[in-house]
């Protein structure tokens, strides 16, 4: 038995829509098998993983809280990946964004004005962009692979945050807990609705997705991203600079990751601590792909992946499986998305008989 691919004359629009859904269905199916292997009833396990978190108001708020950073980062990564710049260090840019933004409420804790919060958000985005600027600089001017450098910088950023939270930024009155002072009200991102905790980061995420979609669809910059991503040569003939595209896509994705970082700290956590993210920066890679590298798609996929975080927590409580299943679900999902994407460009055929088949040219 063998699998053969035949290139479609043009990309299938139908499959472009169906592929993420198919991937989701396959993930749920294999997830059920996994729960069975763990000795749980697959249906009730899947129910508590995927459905239960959607039934309470408070957990819908949690969904928005977790989806916000995922969408923000995922939108930025969609642009970067479309332009063929592989920024996989969003987790580090998220961290540095959080650190930059937190300078105001921690070092200048006394400065509490209506301007504090906007300044923090700007600083956060700036921090993320600067940090993504390192791999951008190295790629654009020293020809260094951005995948490896951006990833290495994640570890550096996390260690730096760890040092801040346990060292210079530790709250002297905090009973020796490794965390900073709690942010003042003026430095806190408030809730969006009366009914729960969901804060304005979710709104930022939606706005960012919409604006980025408009940029990609209707502006010259978006066109450049698409052309240079598909063929650098074609882009050069059109007079587009791939070097400037490296800078643009890395800084853009870094800024959004940084904004996500400071929003998370100012909205959900309220202080600096050694670990501020359950791997949002890496999960957002899956968000970008599941959303088919489309900024609006990232909204839907961000919500789905936020659900896997909540589902893991819920499944741990209600059926007693480890919350590690979350990561497995996320990994499976990315695998299935990538395999289903094959259907967009190719017809896949199973050849049952052995030997060489006479394929059509």
């Amino acid at each position: 038995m063998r699998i053969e691919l035949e290139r479609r004359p043009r990309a299938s629009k139908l499959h472009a829509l169906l592929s993420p859904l198919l991937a989701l269905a396959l993930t749920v199916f294999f997830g059920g098998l996994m729960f069975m292997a763990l000795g749980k009833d697959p249906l009730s396990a899947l129910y508590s993983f995927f459905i239960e978190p959607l039934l309470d108001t408070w957990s819908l708020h949690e969904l928005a809280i977790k989806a916000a950073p995922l969408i923000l980062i995922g939108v930025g990564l969609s642009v970067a990946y479309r332009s063929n710049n592989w920024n996989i260090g969003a987790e580090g840019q998220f961290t540095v964004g959080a650190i930059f933004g937190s300078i105001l409420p921690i070092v200048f804790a006394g400065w509490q004005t209506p301007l504090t919060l906007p300044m923090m958000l700007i600083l956060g985005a700036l921090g993320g962009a600067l940090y993504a600027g390192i791999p951008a600089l190295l790629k654009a001017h020293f020809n260094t692979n951005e995948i490896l450098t951006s990833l290495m910088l994640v570890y550096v950023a996390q260690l730096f945050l760890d040092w801040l939270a346990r060292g210079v930024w530790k709250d002297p009155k905090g009973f020796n807990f490794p965390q900073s002072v709690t942010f003042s009200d003026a430095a806190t991102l408030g809730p969006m609705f009366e009914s729960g905790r969901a804060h304005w980061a979710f709104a930022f995420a939606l706005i960012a997705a919409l604006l980025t979609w408009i940029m990609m669809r209707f502006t010259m910059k978006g066109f450049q991203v698409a052309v240079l991503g598909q063929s650098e040569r074609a882009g050069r003939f059109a007079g587009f600079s791939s070097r400037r595209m490296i800078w643009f896509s890395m800084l853009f994705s870094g800024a959004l990751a940084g904004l996500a970082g400071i929003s998370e700290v100012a909205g959900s956590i309220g202080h600096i601590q050694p670990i501020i993210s359950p791997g949002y920066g890496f999960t957002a890679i899956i968000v970008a792909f599941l959303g088919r590298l489309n900024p609006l798609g990232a909204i839907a996929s961000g919500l789905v992946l936020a659900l896997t975080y909540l589902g893991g927590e819920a499944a741990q409580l209600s059926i007693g499986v480890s919350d590690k299943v979350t990561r497995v679900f996320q990994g499976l999902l990315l695998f299935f998305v990538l395999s289903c994407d094959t259907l967009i460009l190719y017809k896949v055929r199973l050849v049952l008989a052995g030997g060489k088949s006479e394929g059509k040219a």
Partner: protein
Amino acid sequence: MIFEAILLTIITASTPLVIASLGELVTERAGVLNLGVEGMMIMGAVGAFAVAQMTGSPYIGVIAGIVSGAVFSLLFGFLTLTLVANQVATGLALTILGLGASGMLGESFVGIPGIKLPAIAIPLLSDIPFIGPILFKQDIAFYLSIALVLGINWFLFRTRAGLKLRAIGDSHGSAHALGINVIRTRYLAVMFGGACAGLAGAQLSLIYTPQWVENMSAGRGWIALALVVFASWRPWRVLIGGYLFGAVGIAQLHAQIIGQEFGIAIPAQFLSMLPYVATVVVLVLISQNRRTTLINTPASLGKPFVPDR
């Protein structure tokens, strides 16, 4: 002897980097970029630890580690070779899935003391003063790492099969036209890379720190990837680079102690950053020269291949 002890720790820290990097070197020489080394390594580590616990034999554990890595790499092979999925994205997926699955599989092993692989003294040679205890009283992983350098070097540059593999990596279209089975060779190369990463993982959980800790590979898979670039796809240079990086990792531990003696408190976090910063710096220095990079890199690296019929 302190010097001897330091050398021994450097060797133990370098071996997994060398092994994983050699495997990836062969994969990349065949034109496939597998960014999932970290994931395959951690699967090897958990597989090796689990089987060693169940059977009581660390050697069966090592074999299990190798098999785990190779089988896990098949997932990557199927997606990128059969379904021509994007190699960068699929490699990331392999790492994400590996870190998640190993965390889940290994949960019951957290905190259990592991079984350490014993060192094997080679008769006569291990009696040589100074060199003997360092080079000839080592564990199986170290011996294998040296054998791999020699073997891969011979295979790639002295055998017909190695020539074909390099041909595929440099131009899969031409290789295909010459009747070489591109996909099959690439599957084998990917599995070899997986097996090596698995062995490196086994070294981590059975020798380096004989226990299971979640995420215990701690970025070593990524450093191994950088090492391949550093070595410009040559096995001997992987060995040298692996030891340089291993030494940086160990130097970081000693720097802290030395610092304390002189009353300088360097925060541990900054020292822990060293291997990662060193990787970035080395990558920059190596890839600066565009022309040599272009000559050394396998020309088909990371490019999808669909055989035309």
